[in-house]
């Protein structure tokens, strides 16, 4: 199947693509962009862990002491994330104090003032004064110890056995445990969600970009009239195969470059990443992703090249591209919606539907349990799609590349299929 003419076309195509500015920029910029996003998130998290200066005020020395004891033993204070000052004053004194500290609060020299009145021992209502009172991180850090102090104090005045007291405390701890379990769950899913996004995005971007490139290239050959010179040496089939394989190889190369950091991270037994974003990716999944991608790329390159052959200027081609675009965009949205419900019927079915399976199946593979058998079926669907569309695409391509002039209608294009060329 591969003769020296196809190889010559292939080589020219790869050379032209790989040294093109667009390819180099995208190959470098996309990972920079992706890691930039992760970097920004890390930065934001660091920002989040800046020190909090909070003054805790209660109305009695006893309570202040208890709060101090409890809060000082928290991790946040030990890690110096939370810097606490304790003070005892009554309501009037507190009001004065608050007034005097207003400027410091506004300047965020003090992030907040927490006021635990005596009444809190009965109704658990405490007051928090801050420029940003809805800081969740702070309440995460402080609520539990304060609650504990309040409970201890509340019950210590009563004749309660230690067991009863433990029981009361436990109630709070159970709530906390529930929360941490919830956290554990999301932590686990986060890494594969990242993969789902990543796979879907990379497929989408690469299919579109390589597709657009081959389309432009076909249009250029057509409009610069070079195609007839080439056809005097090479058959249109050889030209098409050479071009598509050349672009396909380039796309695969680019995808491998894009995926290499992910593969590195995944294979380094999650030393580099915190557990919340750890990625579990088997070699089989990577190989499957690349094989699926290559098949899909070949299919879509065929479609893009065919659209390029139908039209003789980029504007017409762009407007004639919509059927192909739909075949990429709809699966793209299905893959994204699947993140909310990986087991939806649409997700399942579309991972076996021609064209859609190329984008949906890799996404589904990362967040739902998909058997190897199903993955292979999806590949078979791709291969059948390829075999079904290429004779048609090749014919339209063959006729289209020698046609110039009036923009053809779709009905005319269908007629071309009947021509003997």
């Amino acid at each position: 199947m591969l003769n020296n003419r196809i190889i010559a076309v292939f080589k020219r195509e790869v050379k032209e693509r790989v040294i093109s500015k667009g390819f180099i920029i995208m190959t470098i910029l996309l990972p920079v962009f992706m890691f930039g996003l992760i970097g920004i998130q890390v930065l934001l998290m660091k920002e989040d862990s800046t020190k909090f200066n909070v003054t805790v005020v209660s109305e009695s020395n006893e309570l202040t002491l208890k709060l101090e004891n409890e809060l000082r033993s928290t991790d946040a204070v030990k890690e110096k994330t939370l810097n606490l000052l304790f003070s005892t004053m009554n309501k009037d004194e507190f009001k004065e104090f608050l007034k005097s500290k207003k400027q410091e609060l506004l300047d965020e020299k003090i992030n907040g003032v927490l006021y635990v009145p005596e009444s809190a021992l009965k109704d658990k209502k405490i007051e928090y004064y801050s420029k940003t009172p809805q800081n969740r991180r702070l309440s995460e850090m402080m609520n539990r110890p304060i609650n504990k102090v309040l409970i201890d104090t509340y019950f210590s005045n009563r004749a309660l056995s230690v067991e009863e007291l433990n029981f009361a405390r436990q109630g709070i701890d159970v709530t906390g445990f529930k929360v941490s379990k919830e956290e554990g769950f999301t932590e686990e899913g986060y890494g594969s969600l990242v993969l789902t996004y990543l796979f879907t995005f990379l497929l989408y971007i690469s299919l579109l970009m390589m597709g657009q490139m081959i389309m432009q290239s076909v249009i250029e050959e057509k409009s610069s009239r070079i195609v007839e010179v080439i056809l005097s040496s090479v058959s249109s089939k050889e030209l098409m195969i050479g071009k598509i394989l050349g672009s396909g190889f380039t796309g695969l190369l680019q995808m491998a470059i894009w995926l290499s950091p992910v593969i590195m991270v995944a294979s380094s037994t999650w030393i580099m990443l915190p557990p919340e974003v750890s990625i579990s990716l088997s070699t089989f999944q990577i190989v499957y992703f690349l094989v699926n991608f290559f098949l899909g790329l070949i299919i879509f390159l065929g479609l893009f090249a065919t659209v390029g052959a139908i039209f003789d200027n980029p504007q017409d081609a762009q407007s004639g591209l919509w059927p192909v675009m739909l075949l990429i965009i709809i699966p793209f949205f299905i893959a994204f919606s699947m993140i909310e419900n990986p087991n939806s019927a649409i997700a399942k079915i579309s991972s076996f539907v021609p064209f859609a399976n190329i984008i949906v199946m890799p996404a589904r593979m990362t967040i739902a349990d998909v058997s190897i058998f199903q993955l292979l079926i999806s590949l078979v669907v791709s291969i059948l799609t390829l075999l079904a569309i290429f004779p048609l695409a090749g014919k339209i391509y063959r006729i289209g590349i020698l046609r110039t002039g009036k923009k053809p209608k779709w009905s005319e294009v269908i007629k071309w299929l009947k021509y003997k060329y």
Partner: protein
Amino acid sequence: MHALEVKNLTKRFGSLVAVDQASFEVPEGSIFGLIGRNGAGKTTTIRMMMGIYMPDEGEVNLRGVKVGQEFKNRVGYLPEERGLYKKMKVMDTLNYFAEIKGKSGRDVHKRANEYLKRFELYDRRLSKVEDLSKGNQQKLQFIATVLHDPDFVILDEPFSGLDPVNTNLLKDIILEMKERGKVIIFSTHLMDFAEKLCDHLAMIDHGKIILKGKLSEIKSRYAQKNVSLTYEGDISFLKGHPIIEKIENYGNTTGIRVKEPEQSQTVLKMLVERGIVIKKFDANDISLQEIFIELAGREVSGKEVHNA
């Protein structure tokens, strides 16, 4: 045996019959002209010969064998609408065109350098094609056409859009290829060029071959009773003269047809008697253009041909 034999080629586009049962033979070592008006079917015929179009009927034989990839490898083809990859470098372009003809390596490189030097493009060999002038791009295209040392050179309207320097250059290439025993086939609507260059021809009109054969034989067949005249003065007295069948003005020359072959001498006598300054009087001579117009009808405007 003929080098190339075109047999009953037919090509339809929908209801339009672009080429209709076209048959002609291209002898070894000849310069063969496929001539006809724009839209007569020349390009379609050539494309079918090149295997770019599949004929609806008929076939093309290379020394008795149906043409295929082997023929393609041995042809240098220059289509009417030609182009190059704009972003490719000159040397890369030449290597690529040789490579798709199955030729690569040191020989090709050497030949490429020779041609580039000869066409004064050697110092531009690392430039991008888009940085060359249009004339230089045309030169590069010629080199790309013949670099792989083809046995056949097929040129579709080779002179369209060429400046005079490149027109001569291409003529030189054609004649040089002929000297080396190559077969050259070209199509043109410019009868002047066809007459000067080709030794065999086929005339195509509305998709049909209306005339074919050796140029000299065709001319002598049509030349009897014909006088080709270049003069100064007024020859209007000849109009309506009983021995004159018709007079056609082709600008530089005038074609006069008499009713009987021997009457051409009478015409000369009359012209001398009237004091017409005769610059050229060629009895039994006919231009290809006259033949063409006679066969393809008056609708072909001589104007177009003359301007070209």
